[in-house]
Structure formats: structure tokens, C-alpha cells
């Protein structure tokens, strides 16, 4: 009886994805979101809500568009091959996701996350209030992320805010409320966890919030049980087919640079090379 009731409640819960996209001089995040939304519909069967600061011309792919003020978290470099690629990163305000989402169960995605499978669908069937990735996997197996499982001088464990699943619950609400507090008092937390205060990072904020909400025991924080598949900044990306991508990169083999190619099919991917992703998405910048 109890199981049946729980199933009924689940069935009536609304589900959807939320994308935050605030363009700057270098990256057209809105184009990324417009390109991503139909993929999310197709693979995950989820409607997509866009949170942005200006109504885009084409919004047909979105369930809803919510206009919010963009706020800069600092300046960052966007193209690691180009020294002159810095721009404001409007990444603050992500903590409002809990309040603005129109869904009971939400998948909060970065726009540079390419959905090419239905893997994330399984998160909606878990009995967890909030999940994100604890570990990252370099798809080229060059181990570029050895440092990215930690942050700050005292090596605090890092969870990634790239993919966050949450459902309406006290725990999820607390995590986002805590993120809000961390964002507001960024300087204080940068001193406590000994990281550079110049750039606001949602990854750091959610990591600190998760540790706090889950009882100050990092080991007890539930996470997505597979790593975040990621292509580093120096991986060049082409789309071969709808869900088929070619990755070109250089690997050092016996002290020699060797050009390598990888075909990735039906596999989600977090893309750090924004210029290449922009080309695929039809960026207007």
C-alpha cells in the first residue's frame, strides 16, 4: 500500500530541466541552451526552462523562459589557447534554482553539458533529494583533472555543479539556501576554505553547502554514482551526427606529441572548449 502511494505521488510530480544562460562578450550561452533543449527533450523526455537575462528571439524549444538579472562572479579566461579571451562570467544566482524551478523534480544543467543519452533519466528514480557529480573523468584518459576533485589550499572535496538533480525537499532547499549564504559571504568562505576569492565558483559553493547540510561528514554526501565525463579545454570537438562527436587532441607518447582522435557516440559530455561548442551550437558570438 505504502509503495503504491509513493508511486502515485511520484507519477504526479512534475519533472523538467532548468538551464541558466547569461551571455557575455565571449560565449553565447543562450545558443548553447537553444541547441541543448531539444536534445534534453529527445533523450530525457523532459521539458526545459531557460533562465536568462534577455528574452531570446527563438524560444520555441523551451517550456518556459524566466527572466532574471545577470550577476558576474568575476572574470575568467574562455579559450585556453588564447591569452586574450577573458570575459565576465555571469555565474552568480544559480542558488536561486530551487526557488525558480517550476518543477517538483529538476535537472539543473550547465549549457556546456551535451546530453546524448538517457543516463540522467535514472536520477529521477532515485530516492535522493539532491545529487551531483563528485568525480570527473577525462574522456581522453590523459588525467587532466587530477586536481579537480579538490579545491582550496587545504584540499576540500569538490562536487561539480555541472549536473545537479534535486527534488522539492527540505534537504535540497537547505543546500540552495546555504549556497545563497556562501555566495553572499564569498570572502568569508574563501578565507575559511583557503581558495582564491576573485572568482565565484558554483562548484565550490555547492561543495561547501553539501558538506554542511549532510552533517559535516563529506563521506556521507550522496553523489551521482558515475563520474562527470568531461573533455578538457584542449580537446577539439566536431559533431559528426546527432549523437556522434569527434574529439581531436594531443597526447604525449614517449615525449612526442601525437595527434589522437576519438569518436564518442551516445555518451553525455561536459565540454570545456567553449569556442568549439559555440561553433556546433551556432553561436552568434
Amino acid at each position, binding site marked *: 500500500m505504502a509503495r503504491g502511494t509513493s508511486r502515485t505521488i511520484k507519477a504526479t510530480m512534475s519533472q523538467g530541466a532548468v538551464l541558466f544562460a547569461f551571455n557575455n562578450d565571449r560565449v553565447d550561452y543562450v545558443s548553447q541552451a537553444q541547441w541543448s533543449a531539444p536534445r534534453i527533450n529527445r533523450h530525457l523526455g523532459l521539458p526545459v526552462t531557460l533562465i536568462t537575462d534577455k528574452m531570446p528571439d527563438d524560444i520555441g524549444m523551451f517550456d518556459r523562459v524566466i527572466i532574471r538579472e545577470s550577476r558576474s562572479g568575476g572574470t575568467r579566461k574562455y579559450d585556453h589557447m588564447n591569452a586574450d579571451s577573458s570575459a565576465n562570467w555571469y555565474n552568480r544566482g544559480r542558488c536561486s534554482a530551487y526557488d525558480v524551478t517550476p518543477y517538483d523534480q529538476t535537472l539543473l544543467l550547465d549549457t556546456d553539458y551535451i546530453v546524448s543519452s538517457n543516463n540522467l533519466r535514472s536520477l529521477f528514480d532515485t530516492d535522493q533529494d539532491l545529487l551531483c557529480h563528485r568525480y570527473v573523468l577525462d574522456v581522453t584518459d590523459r588525467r587532466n583533472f587530477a586536481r579537480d576533485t579538490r579545491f582550496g*589550499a*587545504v*584540499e*576540500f*572535496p569538490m562536487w561539480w555543479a555541472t549536473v545537479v538533480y534535486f527534488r522539492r525537499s527540505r534537504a535540497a532547499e537547505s543546500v540552495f539556501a546555504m549556497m545563497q549564504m556562501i555566495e553572499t559571504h564569498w570572502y568569508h568562505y574563501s578565507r*575559511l576554505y583557503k581558495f582564491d576569492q576573485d572568482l565565484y565558483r558554483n562548484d565550490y559553493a555547492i561543495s561547501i553547502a553539501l558538506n*554542511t547540510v549532510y552533517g*559535516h561528514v563529506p*563521506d556521507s554526501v550522496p553523489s551521482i554514482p558515475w563520474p562527470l565525463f568531461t573533455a578538457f579545454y584542449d580537446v577539439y570537438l566536431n559533431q559528426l551526427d546527432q549523437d556522434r562527436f569527434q574529439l581531436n587532441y594531443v597526447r604525449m607518447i614517449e615525449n612526442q606529441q601525437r595527434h589522437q582522435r576519438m569518436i564518442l557516440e551516445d555518451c553525455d559530455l561536459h565540454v570545456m572548449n567553449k569556442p568549439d561548442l559555440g561553433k556546433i551550437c551556432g553561436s552568434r558570438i
Partner: protein
Amino acid sequence: MAVEFERGYLIIAQNTREIDYVSCARALARSLRWWMPDCRICLITDADEQDPVFDRVRPLPYGDQDPDGQWKLSNDWQVFHASPFRETIKLEADMIINGPIDHWWAWFEHRDVVVSRGMRDYLNEVSDCRAYRRHWDDNDLPDLYNAVTYWRLSATAAEFFQWVKQLFENWSTVRRTLKYCDSLPANTDMIYAMAAKCMGVERVTLPDPWPSMIHMKPAVNYLKTDARPWTDEFVYELVEGRLRINTVEQTWPVHYHDKRLSRELEEHYGQLLASRH
């Protein structure tokens, strides 16, 4: 020494000019008492200590072997002869526990001697820091810590502590057999490691890094300098019976190392115990 209790925790503490180790021992004993009210605790000391948190206070059975020493470590072998327990867990004085540790008995009870191996950082994670273990690595010695040592009355334990005694007493000769240790003073961790190596490491350890403790030496915890203690760099909170360091709940015993903390810990656990009565 006659067996008075089957199982118990033993702390050795001799004050030096600079450090009140007996205060450290009281803090540890109070944390033990908070988490395990019925446990037995014995203090080995040359001080006149009356605190009722200890079930027994015993002198060193063979007297102070190092009356002018700074560390008094060379008395350590006497714990075997001083313990009133059939099974003993010896804990270093400058530690506190953050939860019951009586499940450790089940780990240990099939062994005669268990010396703890490896240590953890403030994130409760097994540490690979070797900054303080150069002499061990140079000499291929096992990575042992006397901070947590178990033994039962047995021939194995008698042999182990006989090795410890001999190695302490002959340290000036022994260290000449080691690499890069010509001027190294004797220390209990190294003596235990050598004793283990003499007897066979597997005879006096468990296969995994159990038992374990959080070691708060700065480099273990990613701090850049030993010049400043961790208490100057990290925020710490005492939440009921637990210590939280830089917002991380400590789930293993903490070897806090900075002895200045002992008074605060002693007082904190004293208040907790008083609130229970």
C-alpha cells in the same frame, strides 16, 4: 602487575618542563568516559593525580628511566608491566576520541599485539603524506604509530615490549645501523617500527590501516608550514562530544598534537560529563 580488569584503555603521561601531559591525559580520559561511560581507564604517571575519571592511577613500575629527558619516551616499554588489564588499548595522551571505539576490541581480540598503521587527515581520509616519515622511508621501516596500540597478556606482547625496551636502552648503538639517523633522538614510533620489523610486521599489525587516527601535524593537513600550529590556520569547534575541524566532523580519534588545546578539551569534556550527572 596483577590483572584487575579484562579490558581497558591505558594512557601514559609524564609532565615535562614545557608540557602538561597529565592535562592531555585527563582530556582524553574524559572523552573516553563521555562516549563509553562504563569503560576502564588507567593512567600511568609519576604525577600525583587524583582525578576520578581514571579507574586506576599507577606509577611506572620500574621508575623513570629518563629523569632528565624532555620527552620521557624511553619509559614506554613499562606500559606492558603497568597495565591492570588482560587486554589493553594504549592511547597517546594528546588525543581525544569522537565516538565510541569499543568495536575496536572485536578487531583486535584475535591478535596478541596490534600497532596502528598509517594515519588520516582532517578530512578523515587516509593520508599519503611522508613529510614526517623520511627516516622510516629511508630505512624501509613500517609506517607504524604507537598512538593506538593493542595487546593482550601473551608471550608475543612480552616479546614485543622486550624489543621496545632493548631498542630504547641501546638507541645510541642501534641508530648507527640506520641510514641518516646519526643524530636522531629515540622516538616511540620508530622504536615500535623497528620492534615490529624484528618480530615480523604481520605479527603486530592488521592488514588494513585500522585502527587509525587523524594526525593534526600541519603537512598532513596540507598546511604549508610547521611554524604555525594547525589551530592558527583552521577553525575548530567542539560540538557535544565531537571535534569539528574546518567544518569537517572528525570521525576517528584525533591526535591534536598542539598541546595548548589540552586545557580547553579537558574543560569541555569535564562540562559534558558534569551535565550528564
